[in-house]
């Protein structure tokens, strides 16, 4: 399974002119004794919708953290649009797994979105910032959540608020870590809709960690199968084949999920 489907088709000059959205070069990450990522290597050209799939503990979230510059790999490096990971946060809109934020923190959805504009927590939200935040919330169908405390939002509503925050600065790369976890089917369906519309409008790149292989097959233009090592990278129909999944997951799971 080739890691660079465009290898040989691009000249060096072209590669310099349009750096890939994601350039992950032989990244290995070790936490203590555990090797979490092993020589992961791929390039994702701009404009694609990448689904990152793999079993639990495969290192998917770690890969996301390497791309964000939160984790420094022991070997290899990553770059986003040609800049070292962590050096261009303004180009990335990140939607985290909704596990790390403080649920008791007193905040409204508007404040959350404004934190994405300012990249700091606001003391006071100005009128123009508020308008921008409301527009971002409206774009994801969450305008009625504007002044609601985050603690009172459901999983799906929180997901929308965090997505509005990620998209408010119109990033070139939208990076999501298991956004559909804890969210019902309808909300999940909406999420893909929203992302595809944003992509179409902005020509942005999306990279999403997901457990939903069917969604990956349907929505993604590239799929990365990860289980410490890279087990596949390319078109969904090539990569989500039985043999690849067997190798990566150790079993085929529910066969109907990837029926073509």
């Amino acid at each position: 399974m080739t890691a660079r489907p465009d290898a040989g088709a691009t000249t060096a000059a072209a590669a310099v002119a349009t750096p890939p959205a994601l350039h992950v070069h032989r990244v290995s990450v070790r936490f203590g004794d555990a090797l979490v990522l092993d020589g992961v290597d791929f390039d994702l050209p701009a404009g694609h919708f990448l689904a990152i799939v793999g079993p639990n503990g495969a290192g998917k979230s770690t890969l996301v953290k390497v791309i964000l510059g939160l984790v420094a790999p022991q070997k290899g490096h990553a770059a986003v649009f040609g800049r070292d990971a962590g050096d261009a946060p303004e180009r990335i809109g990140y939607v985290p797994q909704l596990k790390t934020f403080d649920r008791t923190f007193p905040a409204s959805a508007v404040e959350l979105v404004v934190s994405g504009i300012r990249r700091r927590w606001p003391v006071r939200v100005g009128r123009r910032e508020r308008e921008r935040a409301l527009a971002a919330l409206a774009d994801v169908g969450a305008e009625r959540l504007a002044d609601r405390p985050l603690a009172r939002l459901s999983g799906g509503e929180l997901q929308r608020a965090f997505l509005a925050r990620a998209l408010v600065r119109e990033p070139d790369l939208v990076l999501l870590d298991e956004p559909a976890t804890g969210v019902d089917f309808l909300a999940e369906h909406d999420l893909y809709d929203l992302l595809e519309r944003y992509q179409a409008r902005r020509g942005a790149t999306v990279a999403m960690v997901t457990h939903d292989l069917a969604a990956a097959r349907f929505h993604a233009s590239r799929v990365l199968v990860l289980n410490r090592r890279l087990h596949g990278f390319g078109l969904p129909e090539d990569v989500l084949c039985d043999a690849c999944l067997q190798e990566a997951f150790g079993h085929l799971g529910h066969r109907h999920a990837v029926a073509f």
Partner: protein
Amino acid sequence: MDELFEVLRFGFMQRALVAGALVALMSGLLGTFVVQRRLSFLGDGLAHAAFGGMGVGALAIVSAGLLGAGAGVLRSPLWIALPFALLTALGIAYVRDRTDLSSDTAIGVFFAVSVALGVLAFSRIPPDVNLGFNVMDLLFGSILAVRAVELGAIVTAAAIVVAVLGATWGRLAYATFDDELARTDGVRSRRLEYLLFALSAVAVAVSAVVVGIVLMAAYLVIPAATARLWSRSLAGTSVRAVAIGVATTVIGVIGSFYLDAPTGSAIILSQAAVFVAAVATRRRSG
């Protein structure tokens, strides 16, 4: 009412109110973060570290023969209590950062060690030596007897706390909300946590010398916890925490004077009354 104004003309009353108000200011601003980060035990821990420092400082003063002599600054155990509390704070932050131990465990360890050192130090001071303060003073402070050097330290500490928090509030609040998200936006959350601990140590050390250990822990937690029940934003919590702290200080200081009651107790009970009112009337903001 005239009587009240008469009382307020006394220098010691004015100093007590200014000292108390500034302690409330520092505690309200820092306490908002301490409470939100589930570090409420930290105030207690640092106050007891200040106790340990005061003991060691008092022993040092007596041993060096400085009691009753020398410049104002050397006569106060504050100059050892402060670095002692600072080292303790950084030690707690380090253990929290580098080990799997939870905050309350780390704080508990340092707390116990500080108290032990303080008791050991005080036990080495000959009983006939007059230190100018007694055990009740250490526990509940002697705010009505605050000295110029201590007031000066409180004013300086308050200026530092306000200046530093003013410069870092947006980042600190962001890291408090979601550490990982803040780091993706370039916030150096680990450094900010060490900074928060250091500022808390400074505030607690200079304040505990005046308001006492028990009262200091209360100042850092109760007004902020109360404010949290009445606020929908972190900034709102900070403002209300300071307001509640200052108001209960004024009520407690003046009330204790009239009722001839210990000032520390009066302040804490005022804070408790407001807290109970807040629990009863809190907005369901989640």
